[in-house]
């Protein structure tokens, strides 16, 4: 399954949101990929790799495409969406 989500945190997919994103992705058995929405299949990277996720260089307000294949795919996509749509407490860059 797949879903497209708009990134809410001010920091974009960097620093703390990125850490949380990767930690969350690694909690699930399903294979999770992530890419910039509209960039096509080639841009999809391993959602469990901090290096790859940060390397997407996705900012606040951009849309990302999440692709999941595996037993707990739906739960994984839901959890990832929560991370991407939860603003940080003070909305500031922390790391």
């Amino acid at each position, binding site marked *: 399954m797949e879903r497209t989500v708009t990134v809410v945190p001010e*920091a974009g997919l*960097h*620093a703390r949101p990125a*850490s949380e994103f*990767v930690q969350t992705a690694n909690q699930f058995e399903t294979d999770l990929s992530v890419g910039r929405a509209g960039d096509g299949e080639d841009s999809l990277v391993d959602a469990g*790799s901090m290096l*790859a996720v*940060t*390397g997407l260089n996705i900012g606040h307000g951009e849309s990302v495409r999440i692709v999941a294949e595996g037993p707990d795919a739906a739960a994984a996509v839901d959890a990832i969406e929560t991370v991407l749509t939860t603003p940080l407490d003070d909305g500031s860059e922390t*790391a």
Partner: protein
Amino acid sequence: MRTLTGIGCTPLAGVGTARWYRPETALTLPEQADPDQVEQHEEHGRFETARNEARAAIARARRRAVDRVGEEEATIFDAHREFLDDPQLVGDIETAIESGTPAEHAVADRFERAITRFESMEGRLSERADDLRDVRDRLLRALLDVDTVDLEGLPRGTVLLAERLRPSDTARLDPEAVTGIATRTGGRTAHTVIMARALSIPAVVGLGDRLDGVHGGTDVLVDGPAGELVVNPTENRRAAASDPTTPVRSERVTTVDGCEIPVAANVGTPAAIDVASNRGADGIGLFRTELLFLDRTTPPDEDEQYEAVTTALESFPGDRVVVRTLDIGGDKLVPYLDLPVETNPFLGRRGLRLSLDEHSELFETQLRALLRAAASDHGDGLAVMFPTVSRVSEVETARDRIETVAADLAAEGVEHAVPELGAMVETPAAAVLAGALADRLDFLSIGTNDLTQYVMAADRENDAVADLHDPLHPAVLRTIDQTVTAAHDAGAWVGLCGEMAGDPALTRLLVGLGLDELSMSATTVPAVKERLSNTETEAARSLAEQALSCDRRAAVRDLLTDG
């Protein structure tokens, strides 16, 4: 399995994970080895160990950041942990290792690629490059064994490898965590070794250049009795080396014929006092007070010294605690005292010489603490001795200082007492004058490490003359004998606190030489007690007489082997 031979310093063995202590090394990569020479399996293991160390270090840094800065700021370390465990990065590094790249080169190279990629992009990504550098450097420090080590906070099961350890370094080690010490240089009477024994840490020194080939993260066995460092030991090898457990006897032991000789411990730190007590020592035969003066910027005050001494007295109620006054100089330097650098410090201003002269104020403070301690609850067990004595006048001057301090304390209305007083016999001069010194004192204590060094003119730290630095040389044995006889004639008792006291193979000889107390590293107390309880005084005397008639060390050794 690979065995390196050095000098065993403790009759103990320990296994653990090797960790280099190299405070001086920079973070530079060694030249890359030929891919065929690289052991893939070993490199994978090293990388894994380095990651574990880095992960633990990041967790610690995170906790510190939470404490000092806040939870929010500490999240940077979550990002570091994610980079450390990044499946792409880890996968890339492992692939590189599989193609014959040593772990440190694989890490440096793959991180560099990621860093370059991040830096080529805009904005926040170039900041992330710094995080990658941070993680990379943690890994490289672990792989290159560059010290970031907090000696006090070493993880349990650490075997510390070093060029050499300063006594102050060794004093910082936690005997619960450090299961062994292995150094490139050093002899069996180096101060570090003595302290390692006092802490009951297995130690092998003088391993030489081959120690450089032992990487951090490898499993090693420090076999003190055998004097070996075993890399990747097999189960059988480990079992064979495990501590031959002599039962600890806390009560005094006597010879077969009922002659009681206290088996005391040499200590310098509070931790060592506990170890000594646990190993069944009958008191302390050498309390090295200079260790209270190391690793700080000002000398300890009177109250602190009083506390240290009374604590030792309380740990050994009914036993004697022999405190040696400050013995600095020689190889034991205290930066804040600003002692001049000497070309030959072992023949320079050290021990009592400094206490009576340029550091008389330190001596006075120490004497005040000691005289007060002598009046404390267990103060009647206190004995005080002076180091590096070579003249009768030095002892007389020291006694005068004690009388002055006692008069001062009396005038101040401070409770005090004058303890038993003695001198160390370390110099040939003191040995020759033993009778005259003993006339003015209650006891003598023979420090055979320095005495051997001075009698044989053989530097105890110089491996090239290690063969000469052996108290079994007839010149040293006869010096000991003459000292004991002269002191007994003058009505003084004589202890021996050199490392030879801790060798069970020499116990009979020392009993035969007439020593009244033996003091040693705590580790060896049970073994010496065991030997003492099987010794017959008459046979021991006859052994000593024969040994004293030998002109060559080889003959002395033969005697000991036959006996």
